[in-house]
């Protein structure tokens, strides 16, 4: 069963269409990335999934149940880490987690143990009694995550959780997302940081002007642009080079020589850099530099929309 199934979802504010006929399904165990520039409609879509915004048209199903008809069920199975921090600054870390978990109906000793577990998970177990107003941006984010996961939801939605935080907290958060995923949660992750999405997501939807313009795995998305990668190898001299032998390596399509640079175009899916270098070394070449240039998600986005993600 799909954890999340969205069918022709549309959100209209007057004349303005923020989310336009969006359909997608997310299976159990995925880390699904929403990649798009600011204002592309990611947060609007998320706010509809979490029932914070009414739906103009279309349906959303969580674990096979419509979120409008079974709103209580849907809410109990979603944990959300919103874009804006949602914690009480004049409560301690522990009180915050307890409060939010309490909203989901956890009580008594279960509440205590889950709250402690969640705090330990985000690495704040030694800050139990500290007031969150004294926390750094990264710690506040982590506390926010703890609040969202204490009730062990099936689907965790993280809306730009790494905006404006220090690098350590960022890598901590990315690691904990992977860990949560391994523990059985399905995760929706939105970001306009291409590197993060590329690092952690199993499947990605590129969203622009409220529409999904492409979705699939990293490889599938990159394959939209090209199935070739370019390798440039600078050597001292190309005189003793046997071009035919290079061409015979699996995946290599074309080999061009320009001064002391060998330009190889090869299938992006095949990892043959080792073989190429071995071949060059075997023929006694002195390699000065190697550059491999593969398309990344930023290029994909740029090519499809004509704009960069940071615009």
């Amino acid at each position, binding site marked *: 069963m799909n954890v999340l199934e969205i069918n022709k979802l549309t959100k209209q504010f007057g*004349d303005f269409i923020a989310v336009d006929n969006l359909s997608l399904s997310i299976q159990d165990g995925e880390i699904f990335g929403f990649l798009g520039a600011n204002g592309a409609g990611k947060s609007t879509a998320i706010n509809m999934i979490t029932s914070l915004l009414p739906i103009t048209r279309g349906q959303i199903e969580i674990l096979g149940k419509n979120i409008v008809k079974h709103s209580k069920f849907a809410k109990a199975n979603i944990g959300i880490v919103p874009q804006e921090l949602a914690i009480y600054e004049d409560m301690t870390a522990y009180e915050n987690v307890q409060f939010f978990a309490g909203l989901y109906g956890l009580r008594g000793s279960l509440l205590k143990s889950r709250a402690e577990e969640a705090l330990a998970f985000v690495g704040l177990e030694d800050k139990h009694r500290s007031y969150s107003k004294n926390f750094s941006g990264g710690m506040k984010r982590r506390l926010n995550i703890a609040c969202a996961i204490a009730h062990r939801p099936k689907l965790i939605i993280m809306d730009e959780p790494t905006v404006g935080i220090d690098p350590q907290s960022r890598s901590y958060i990315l690691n904990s997302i992977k860990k949560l995923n391994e523990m059985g949660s399905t995760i929706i992750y939105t970001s306009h940081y291409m590197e993060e999405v590329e690092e952690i997501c199993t499947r990605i939807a590129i969203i622009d002007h409220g529409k999904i313009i*492409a979705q699939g795995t990293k490889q599938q998305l990159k394959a939209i642009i090209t199935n070739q990668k370019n390798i440039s190898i600078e050597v001292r001299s190309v005189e003793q080079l046997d071009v035919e032998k290079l061409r015979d390596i699996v995946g290599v399509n074309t080999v061009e020589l320009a001064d002391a640079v060998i330009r190889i175009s090869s299938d992006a899916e095949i990892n043959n850099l080792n073989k190429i270098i071995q071949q060059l070394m075997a023929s006694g070449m002195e390699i000065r530099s190697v550059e491999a240039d593969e398309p990344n998600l930023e290029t994909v986005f740029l090519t499809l929309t004509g704009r960069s993600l940071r615009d």
Partner: protein
Amino acid sequence: MEFWTIINKIVLMLYVISLTYVSAAEITPWYTLSVLLYLCLNIAVYILKANVMPLISALTVALIATVFVYVHPLLILLLPVSLYELVSYYSKRSVIVFLLMLAPCTFLPHDLLIEYGFIALLSGAYLTLLRTYSGRIKSYREELERMRGDLHQLTNRLHENNDYIRQSEYMFKLEERNRLSQEIHDSIGHSMTGALIQMEAAKRLITADAEKSAELLQNAIHISKDGIESIRLVLKNMKPPTEQLGINRMRIFIDEFAAKHPIKPAFTYEGNVDLISPFHWRIIQENVKEALTNTMKYSSATAISIHIQVLNTLIKAQVSDNGSGASKVVKGLGIIGMEERAAAVNGTVIVDGSRGFSVTTLIPYQDQ
């Protein structure tokens, strides 16, 4: 609306007449005349043209006022409905209409006040409800009509598209057949004839001059070999050059556009445009056309560029201008049409108004 207003008036009139019967005052011929006059005026409203209706209503109001003073005070109870009709020609605000209906209260004798007020309120509420309701029906009907028009237009366009597809398929067939017969005539036909002549000659010489005959036969063999080779070549080249057709059509279209408008769009393409099928070309061209039309209509741009790019699994066709753009894109029939065309082949259309205006059509394709 009319029907229910008439019923309201009839009920009111019957009420007034019966009230007069019951009351002590005697019924004079003048009274009958007034009632008949009132009836006549109200019927005339529906017979005469629409533009004299305010006049008739005003006359009715005047009649009622006169008979109230000179004939019978109870007749004033007919006033609210006529007053409503008169006022609602000039004001759409229900509050104003209500207030004006209640205005005569100030002149009325005390004993009639309550009855008049009650009738005014009741009729007012009834007629207002009726007016909103019929207004709504009217707007729904208009909406329905508009949608029917849209539907009609879209169906037409669909038919046109289907026709075009059929036509272009036929065109391709013809073009291909033409080419093929030309090729056969030019190369294979000639070599076959040549070989035949050589063989005929060899047959004649076979007894007289065996050596010459063998030479001729060898010639025939060579010519036949060349013939076979050219058949192979023809078959190899037989794939129709769709890309040239598509690109050329696009160029012709852009030239036509430039002739009619002050801007000449810059057209560029990259990637292997062979891979774009005629059907996809059709969609691309329609969308480009629509986008260009929109640009000319709204953008006040001075430059337009059209770029077609064939990626690994996707065709991208972008029309962008340097005009005023739009911070908020409102989807009209044009954009919806582009989206529908693209959606028919699992594609999408991105409309962006943040830097100039750009319309990008993305169409996935299968690499065969």
